[in-house]
Structures are given as C-alpha cells and as structure tokens.
C-alpha cells in the first residue's frame, strides 16, 4: 500500500475526491493561513488543498491540510476513507507490532534534479508566508528534520526524524525549537558537550507515513523509518545525503542541508501553537543552511496550526494514542482496552480499562502520566470502563456524569511536569495534574447503585452493521 512519494499520495487524494485544487489567484497573506484555518472549521471530512496561483510567484505550488481529516488519515494508512477513527486506532496499533521493518536504500533521489550550492536565499527558493497574524516571521512547519546522535553516530535507531517549528530568519539562516523533551535536543546536547555543530537535513514534501511517524513520540533508540515501514507494510526508501551520514526520505520534494550551530541561541517567535495561544519569544538554536536540493517545480507543503482542531491534531492524534496504549498495555495487558489522547496533543487523555479491584483505574491514570509522552502531557486523565468507547465523547460524558463521584474519584497531583507551551503552566513546564475516575466502582469499593446497567436491545449490533452497509453504499 506504500505511497511512492508526496505526489503519489496527492494523486490518490485526487482520485478519492479528497484534494481541492485552487487555481484562482490568492495572496500569500492573509489567504493561505486563513484557508488552512477555515478548511478545518468547516468539516472533519475535509480535503487537502493545493494552491497553484499565488500572487507574486511564477510556478509555486503550495499544499496544505494533506492529512487534515479522518478520511485523509485513513488513506494515509491505505484504508478506505470511511474507516471509523477507532478502527484506524486499532489498525495502527496492530501494524505497530511489526516494528522494525528494515529500510530500502536508494542510490539516487528525485530531489537531486536541482542543487543550490552556496549563495542560498530561502526567500527566493521557497514560497514562504506568514501563517498566523502575529507569528514572528515565515515558518517551515511540516519538515522532517533528520539528525544523528554525535556520541553514537553509527546507531541507526538513534538517528532521529522529527517535526519542529522552523523560522526562516535570514537568507540561509533558520531558527529551530527543540524543547528538552525532544530527541533532537539530546543530539544537540551531545554535540554542544563536544563543542561541535550538529549536522541536520530538512525534508519538505514527504509522503504522509514518514511525516506521521516523525510526529509520533516513539522511543529514543527506535527508528522512525523502520516504524514507517511497519505502518506502510513495506520497507521505507531512504537516500543518504552525499557527504553526510544523514538518511533522508527518498521521495522528498525539497531538502535543506545544514547544521545547528553549537553554543548559539537567538531570539525566535512568537509562533501560534497547537495550544491555541502564541508561544512568546524565546532564545532558540540556529541552523546555518549550506545547500538546497529540490525537484523541478517542487510542491511546498505547509500545515495550519492553531486552536484545535487543525491539521496538526489529525497529524498527532492516533500516532500519540498508540504509544501510550502500548506502554500501558505492557503494564496491564489484560485490562487496557483503548487510549484516546487526541485532545491538544494529549494534554487530555481518556483511557478505557477493565478493573481488577477497587482503586485499580486510578493507578492506570497515574501510569498514563508516567509514560514518555505523559511526562509532558496528560494534564487530565479520564478513566472509563471497558464498555465505554473513549473515542465517543458522548459516551465519555455519560460515564463522567453517572460513574464519577467527586468525593472519591478526583485526584489532584501537585507540581508535575508538563510541556512549557502549556499556557496555564506556572512556572512554564510545571502544573498540577488531575485524574477523573469515571469507571464503575468494584469491590472492595462498594458504593453507588450500579447493579442494574441498561443493556442495548439484543439485535442492536446486527442493526448497526445493516445501517453501516447501507450508509457506505450511498
């Protein structure tokens, strides 16, 4: 099912009616950012956008919202576009078990068609634009950034592919945000301890599976490429950038090659973030770009980010739920049923679990907070019974409204770690966290009147299948 490259995926979206090409002239600002925002406002089934006529540019093409809906996310996985979210979650989790799938190495790559060596001017080379009105500049916000651990450069799994916000600050100079929880921050720390710059490559316009894995919180020594192979069901193609040890996605539209300057921090931001707030200005590392590769007439991919839901939330939805699910499942294999950590990248997390005994679900909640991702997120963990679908918010609200007793089921944990971008954290990076146990009490916690649950009529499942079949034919 693997997509050869970004253009291959866009062709599939076109065939499936999930790509909207806008040929009328648009202004770089405010039209592109506004359209990226608006497409998520109008539907959760929305298409990707391809702009082909941008004021002031000759041949520029800009793609946005590429995996910005559940149909597009399903197509990313090679599933029918009508696949329900919960089924996408379980299929993603099933494929995750196939890790690792070794990469396929290629001897050349399409982005070698054009090489700009020296005298790089990114403002001339890329159709950059301001996304949100008080962003401090023009950003590259959906590039796969590749780096290796300078203290263990031969370790393929420690090579990192991640997505970070990148401000274009000068003709050949970028700002990057590697918060301490990010893998690239470990690479940078090791490089700075050695007094060395950190070589990096930025791949823009990749097929969506590597982008999805680059945005997933997988283990430090796990390879995003080998996990992408597991998710797409065949080896992921990479190309080693000449003169470097950096493996980049073979099908990329554009590749920037450079290095993060050791010991340098420079003012960056603010940038409108997935929290629905601007980040404020901070001093962040700087990337010096030395070389640019790109296809002829490349497609520049960008994503809108802001108050949920946006493309960002689809991009970091299921790929965040599954690692938390897997880590909880390692602890409690017979009890954990599903995890929905899709709200503001998992600041709110809902876990469906069986109970061994009274108090068990609360321990599951604390375990969720202690997962790798939970350390910086999971500010609120809601526990629901195994019969409640955590992806069905009306069911979750029902559980909260009928199962939770505020005197017994609310736990506040003071001064826990959270990502500094949480605008409520004080100081930045510290917050209280909360567990809401909305599971049915079990012995020895015998309270409430839960002995007569209302089951659905016995033929309900049969009728669900009948209706799904009828609706899919429409």
């Amino acid at each position: 099912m693997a997509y050869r490259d970004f253009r291959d995926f866009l062709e599939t979206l076109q065939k499936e009616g999930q790509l909207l090409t806008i040929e009328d002239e648009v202004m770089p600002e405010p039209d592109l950012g506004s359209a990226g925002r608006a497409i998520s406002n109008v539907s959760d089934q929305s298409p990707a956008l391809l702009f082909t006529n941008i004021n002031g540019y000759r041949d520029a093409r800009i793609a946005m919202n590429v995996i910005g809906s559940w149909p597009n996310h399903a197509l990313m996985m090679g599933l029918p576009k009508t696949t329900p979210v919960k089924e996408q979650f379980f299929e993603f989790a099933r494929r995750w078990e196939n890790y690792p799938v070794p990469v396929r190495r290629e001897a050349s790559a399409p982005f070698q068609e054009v090489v700009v060596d020296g005298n790089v001017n990114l403002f001339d080379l890329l159709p950059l634009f301001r996304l949100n009105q008080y962003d401090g500049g023009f950003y590259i916000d959906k590039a796969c950034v590749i780096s290796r651990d300078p203290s263990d450069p031969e370790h393929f799994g420690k090579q990192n592919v991640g997505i970070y916000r990148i401000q274009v600050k000068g003709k050949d100079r970028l700002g990057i945000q590697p918060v301490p929880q990010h893998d690239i921050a470990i690479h940078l720390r090791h490089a700075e301890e050695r007094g060395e710059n950190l070589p990096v490559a930025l791949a823009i316009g990749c097929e969506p599976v590597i982008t999805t894995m680059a945005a997933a919180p997988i283990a430090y020594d796990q390879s995003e490429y080998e996990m992408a192979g597991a998710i797409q069901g065949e080896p992921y193609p990479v190309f080693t950038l000449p003169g470097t040890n950096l493996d980049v996605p073979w099908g990329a539209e554009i590749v920037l090659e450079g290095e993060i300057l050791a010991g340098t921090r420079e003012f960056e931001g603010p940038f409108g973030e997935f929290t629905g707030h601007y980040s404020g200005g901070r001093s962040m590392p700087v990337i010096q770009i030395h070389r640019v590769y790109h296809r002829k007439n490349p497609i520049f991919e960008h994503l809108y980010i802001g108050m949920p839901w946006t493309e960002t939330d689809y991009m970091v939805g299921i790929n965040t739920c599954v690692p938390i699910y897997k880590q909880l499942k390692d602890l409690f294999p017979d009890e954990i049923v599903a995890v929905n950590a899709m709200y503001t990248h998992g600041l709110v997390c809902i876990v469906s679990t069986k109970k061994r005994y009274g108090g068990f679900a609360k321990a599951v909640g604390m375990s969720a907070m202690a997962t790798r991702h939970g350390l910086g997120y999971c500010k609120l963990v809601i526990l629901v019974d195994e019969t409640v679908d955590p992806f069905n918010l009306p069911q979750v609200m029902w559980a909260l409204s009928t199962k939770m007793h505020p005197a017994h089921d609310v736990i506040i944990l003071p001064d826990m770690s959270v990502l500094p971008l949480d605008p409520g954290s004080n100081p930045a990076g510290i917050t209280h966290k909360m567990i809401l146990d909305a599971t049915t009490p079990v012995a020895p916690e015998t309270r409430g009147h839960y002995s007569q649950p209302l089951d659905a009529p016995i033929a309900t499942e049969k009728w669900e299948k009948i209706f799904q079949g009828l609706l899919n034919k429409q």
Partner: protein
Amino acid sequence: MSTCPRCDSKEAGKVSDSPVSGAWTIYACPVCFYTWRSSEDPKFTSSSLYNPDFKVRQADIPKAIHVPEIAQRK
C-alpha cells in the same frame, strides 16, 4: 534600510523581491528577526500600527530564556 514594524530597529533590510516583478518585497529585521512582506495589511508592516501587545522591546531580547539551555563543554 527600513524600520522594523515590531522592534522599531532601523536595521531591517530587503531579502527578496517577488519573482513576478513589482508584486511585493520581503524584508527581515536582524535585531528581533521579524519578517514581513510589503503586500501585507499595514498593521503588520507599519511600526505605528503594529499591535502593542506583540511589540518586542530591543532591551528584552537578550533576556529571553534559552530553550534548550546551552550544554556545557565536556
């Protein structure tokens, strides 16, 4: 040199002209790193019209916290 709409530095300069001649120009400020396009609404290109809540004081720039901290050489 141009005035930066955000930090009022006088050191901002042109970094790119539109490929289609005369459509717009992009400017960048080497002090606060604000970047803007001449075709944007004046409230993003004019120092006097820029939203005061998002102005940057040049004196505050060196005080911005480091993310991440610079690692000590070992």
